């Protein structure tokens, strides 16, 4: 097998970026304000370019998410940037969907950071457990079990809210009798 030419590398990189650019952008925008997301996206692209030969052809997107996760963590480590993020986060509009499913939003917010991140990767990035494992650098076994537990905890939080007499006003089909 011959070494790929510079042109081949560039083409492959362009192809990869074409596939992962928007998903990466969305990943970062879900977790940071716009300026931070832009900064980190630049960092991610830099890393991807440096490591173009390491990018796997299988599981490419999850691999790139893992890079983005580390770049975002690096970015947030800086106290100054963290302060900027917090300032800007306060300027972000509330999630517009919150009113449509307040029970779920409240149940989701009641979870730990780790649970929330698992569920984000699962439901927002639409990753399978083995891909989640790749992003979080844990074993697929651990990812599967933690995801299972996280969904279980989310359901329990939802059930608690459902059982509250004042809860679930938007869930017309639900019974209103409190069981506890």
């Amino acid at each position, binding site marked *: 097998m011959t070494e790929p030419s*510079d042109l081949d*590398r*560039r083409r492959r990189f362009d192809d990869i*970026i074409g596939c992962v*650019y*928007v998903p990466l*952008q*969305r990943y970062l*925008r*879900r977790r940071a304000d*716009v300026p931070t997301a*832009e900064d980190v*996206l*630049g960092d991610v*692209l*830099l890393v*991807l*370019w*440096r*490591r*173009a*030969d*390491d990018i*796997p052809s299988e*599981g490419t997107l999850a*691999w790139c998410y*893992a890079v983005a996760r580390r770049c975002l963590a690096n970015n947030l480590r800086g106290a100054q940037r963290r302060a900027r993020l917090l300032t800007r986060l306060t300027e972000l509009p509330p*999630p*517009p*969907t*919150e009113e*449509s*499913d307040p029970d*779920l*939003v409240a149940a*989701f917010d009641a979870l730990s950071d780790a649970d929330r991140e698992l*569920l984000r990767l*699962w*439901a*927002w990035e*639409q990753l*399978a*457990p*083995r891909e989640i*494992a*790749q992003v979080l*650098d844990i*074993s*697929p*076994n*651990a*990812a*599967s*079990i933690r*995801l*299972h*537990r996280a*969904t279980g905890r*989310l*359901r329990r939080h939802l059930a608690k809210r459902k059982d509250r007499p004042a809860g679930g006003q938007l869930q017309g089909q639900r019974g209103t009798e409190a069981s506890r």
Partner: protein
Amino acid sequence: MTGTDDQLRTRLSAIDPLHPTTTPEPLARYRAEEILEHAMGTITDTTLTPAAPAPRTRRFRAPLLAAAAVLAVAAAAGVAVVMTDGDADPGGSSTLSLSVGSGDAMSSCLQFDVAILAGMPIAFAGTATEISADAVTIEVDRWYRGGDADVVWVSVPDGQTSAALDGVSFQAGTRYLVTATDGVVNGCGFSGEASPEFEAAYAEAFAG
């Protein structure tokens, strides 16, 4: 994945702040190109020539070792599977031979669910006592289902350098919870290092 999981996932996706109906303006195209050009221009000289590979995380290419196809058929269609247990000795101290799957066996991975776990024909807990080039020896301390052997040998398929579960190598002295289907150890969260949480899942799945 169960229908209930699908529903929960769909419901969760609806509170995604970047849900298609609420997506904020994407980065302008010129900004994207600027970032990309900056990224490539910064290090063109060093990256376009073959360089020492950057450190990489082994797990990125770690083979996934469960026979998901078998699992999927068994779980979805309820097809009975037959274990390969040629070494099993029906009387007294006995051994059971299993294998970890080949690296390409898992094109898809069933999401962990206690209900699926409960359908596994072989399930036990034990401690890895010996790791050799071609097999891992596990001394069983508890059988949940499908056997009574004292020792289980997990062999390494041809072409693999060591026995591993989901890309993580077995460690001597570590306790594992293991399920197997058709003589092949299941990964995908259905086998792995013992933890209170994992053991609780086994207890729930194989209760009674």
